[in-house]
């Protein structure tokens, strides 16, 4: 019991950051916004680009993410091997700038499935009604 209390105290210390860095930085878990972006990319289909992803997130979640945050998240997902991207042709309506197209890889679909299964296990048997009462 004393050991458990000691570990609980240790996990409340400022050095938690080392614990979290060790456990969270391996790309095993999806962050909340990573989850949103990956699901949106899956909804829109392969070959979609940042502007459409941003607009879809805004219309579905009523959040208006900054385009920089969307691209930073897409770059992080690509580094984790969950999506891939390629540069398309420049177009006139974009001021002659090229699009970066994105595609969800099998690892991305697996990560979403795993994430959903984890959340379903955590939700199982919970009654929000009881908690609110």
């Amino acid at each position, binding site marked *: 019991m004393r050991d458990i209390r000691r570990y609980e105290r240790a996990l409340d210390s400022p050095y938690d950051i080392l614990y979290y860095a060790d456990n969270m930085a391996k790309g095993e878990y999806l962050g909340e916004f990573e989850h949103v972006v990956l699901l949106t990319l899956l909804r829109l289909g392969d070959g979609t*680009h*940042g*502007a459409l992803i941003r607009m879809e997130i805004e219309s579905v979640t009523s959040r208006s993410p900054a385009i920089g945050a969307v*691209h930073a998240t897409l770059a992080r997902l690509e580094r984790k091997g969950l999506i891939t991207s390629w540069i398309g042709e*420049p177009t006139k*309506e*974009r001021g002659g*700038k*090229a699009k970066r197209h994105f595609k969800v890889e099998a690892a991305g679909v697996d990560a979403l499935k795993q994430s959903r299964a984890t959340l379903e296990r955590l939700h199982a048997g919970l009654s929000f009604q009881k908690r609110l009462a």
Partner: protein
Amino acid sequence: MTPPFLARAIVAAAAPPLDYESVAGDLEEEYAGRVESAGRAHADRWYWSQALRSVPALLAYTRVRPSLVLDALTAALVVVLLVAMLFVAEFMCNALFSVYPHASGARSWPFFVAGWADAAFFGALLTVIVRSRGLRLTVIASLALVAAIAVPIFLGYSSPLSAGTWLLLLGAVPAMSAGTALVQVLRRR
């Protein structure tokens, strides 16, 4: 119909070089749609909001693939440029001392102008040499310079600086960033 110049310049300055076209192009595409559906004023406000809110995220990531050798070479180049920047600043300050031997308080402004111009020049030079890293590298390099001077002082290994020298040192961060931003904006006009 083009978005506001200054807001576009902010995006051009902050976006990672390998992702600039896709970020700026996405913004321009959506801006054009908003001009048609809601009018120019609304679209301008939206673009400003997107540009300003995107800066932290744009500085936080890079599309350069991690490579130990390239990262080590970049770090070595940064150290060389920062040392050269300090030497040039020292040289310019000595030259200014001969012209303004009793400069103090507000009258020492030429030293600040020279120091920050030196920092802006080296910030620009860093971006010209390392094309793929952009403003993110300059911000990291300038903060590393401040830390390399400030940490030994706080630990008591180095003698304290005057308020003016602190101002000069801390001003090097925005000055170097301004040099880099200018190069990025000119490159992406």
